[in-house]
């Protein structure tokens, strides 16, 4: 498969992201609000918007990297022979974690960790690890026994089997899980505004509270733009890493 073909899904996502990003720019958002019949209100200026976007990106990015590392590492551990007995436990914990929505995790972390970025980061990591772990375990378990037998037969060591057979074959499943985790990270960082984290969720929450549509639209469009662009970037990087 050529590189172009592999990264083509990123094009649509990236363009959507750019379009949404354009909507979040002050002049566009004001026009849009006027078209919706809103009284003209002050928009977030470009400086503040980019500051919030940068903080959002830092929070979601840090969380995502931690989630990806921990999720894949634990996933690999969970599929080793010695952990076979613990696998059903991991499955049931993962299923249970799914029942707790991210906003509730943020809320519960608040009294423990206080206001600001930390509770959000914790919520993000606690919540995002599970899908990545599950994806990694699922992907590695789906590797056909024939491929493993063949690898053993040609004399590969366990570490070689992991890096040359299991991980490459499981990669598409892991990538899907990583995409879910990235979108989740961007969304949770937005919800973190409720816990006082300063992100693109902040103008949305504030706008909802004081009926100020322009910053609300800007925050919403910019958050969505970040999610689409992040998703596109992930596909792009994954496509380029895999020659």
């Amino acid at each position, binding site marked *: 498969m050529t590189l172009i073909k592999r990264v083509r899904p990123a094009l*649509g*996502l990236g363009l*959507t992201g750019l379009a949404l990003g354009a909507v979040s720019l002050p002049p566009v958002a004001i026009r849009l*609000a006027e*078209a*919706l*019949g*809103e009284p003209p209100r002050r928009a977030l200026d470009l400086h503040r918007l980019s500051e919030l976007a940068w903080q959002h990106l830092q929070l979601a990015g840090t969380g995502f990297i931690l989630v990806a590392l921990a999720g894949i590492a634990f996933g690999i551990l969970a599929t080793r022979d010695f952990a076979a*007995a*613990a696998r*059903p*436990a991991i499955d*049931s*914990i993962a*299923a*249970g974690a*799914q*029942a*707790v*929505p*991210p*906003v*509730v995790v943020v*809320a*519960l972390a*608040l*009294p423990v960790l206080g206001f600001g970025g930390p509770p959000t980061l914790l919520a993000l990591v606690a919540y995002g690890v599970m899908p990545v772990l599950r994806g990694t375990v699922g992907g590695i378990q789906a590797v056909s026994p024939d491929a493993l037998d063949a690898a053993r037969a040609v004399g590969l060591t366990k570490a070689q089997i992991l890096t040359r057979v299991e991980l490459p074959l499981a990669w598409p499943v892991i990538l899907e899980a990583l995409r879910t985790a990235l*979108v989740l990270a*961007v*969304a949770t960082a*937005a*919800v973190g*505004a*409720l*816990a006082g984290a300063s992100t*693109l*969720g902040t103008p*949305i*929450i504030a*706008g*909802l509270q004081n009926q100020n*549509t322009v910053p*609300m*639209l800007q*925050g*919403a*469009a910019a*958050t*969505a733009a970040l*999610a*689409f662009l992040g*998703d596109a970037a992930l596909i792009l990087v994954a496509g380029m890493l895999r020659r």
Partner: protein
Amino acid sequence: MSARIRPLPGILALGWVIAMAVALLTLPALRIAPNRLVVGTPVYGLEVFGWWVAAILASGALCVGLLVAATTRRRALVALGFLALCAILLALGLGAGAAHRMVGQPPAARASLGAGIWSAAALLSFTMGFAVQASRIAGLGLFVPVLLLAILGTAGHLGAFDSLSLAVEYAARREAVNEAVLQHLGLAGGAVLLGIAGAVLLSLWRRGQGLVAILVGGVQVIPAVALLGALVALVSGLLRLVPSLRDIGLSALGAGPALIGIAAYLLLPLWRGLATALRAPDPASLDAATGLGLTRSQILWRLRLPLGAPILVGALRVAAVQSLGLATLGALIGAGGLGRIVFDGMAQFAPDLILLGAIPIVALSLGAERGLSLAEDAARLRLRA
């Protein structure tokens, strides 16, 4: 099916006993505070339960021991019973311990649950989950939690937990919480219905399935807070253009945009489930049905839907759990529900109020997940019969 079951690995059991001892003996079981906003002074398990803590630990260890040795269903069930007993004893002991400590305290004082109790509860429920799995009795996973809730609920009704901060918080806003639960269920249920209607309409549009896939997939990328915010703006714009929509009850803030927003996220699982379910019968049986002279609608109702039923219920399960979680955010745009209690708690920085909203959300989601996966299994079994 043989009666032999999968035992709990010994190393996990050992870890469980150690973790349980650490949780009950070294982490605070209760925190006593002069009011609901400050972090209280810790009170440890030995002080709250006295030597009962040894009995609880011992019977817990016995249960995991039984599960390690478990090769029969009966052992798993005995372990499950003892674990449930442990949980009840722990809860009643906590209630009594808190009542004992609250004597002579000012009315604003609170006894809230400490980290040790949360850890112990997590450990207990994990092992009970294992025992339920090991017993291999369908429905037990729903029955045991419901029974435990009923017992603890009755005890709470009789006043066993009145001194615990959560119960005080609940007593202060019983009406609001009960109403929020109903609103939450209404919001989540309404969104599922709307999502089903949307998914059916989308799958009727044969030519556009490629576009539909891109759209319903794209929605998943948009963070829910952003989508809800944008919907409020769009709906208020729409109401300015067509004011008569107000007469049918649509408003920019409230249940309307929340239902639309939540339903948008449910389209992907529901639409995908519907498409997969309709393709469930193999081509040979479809040919046979056509050969027998069945009409298209007869094939749909007698062949495609019954054969696809487990997939449909599975899609419904995913959508229901998502819907119950997303409904929490509805409170941000004035749709009420349990999210309002959570957000009130965050605004007041009152941990017990947050819990009062969060616990029912998690319980409802887990209940929906368990209940519908039982229905899914039942549908699958019926197919095989």
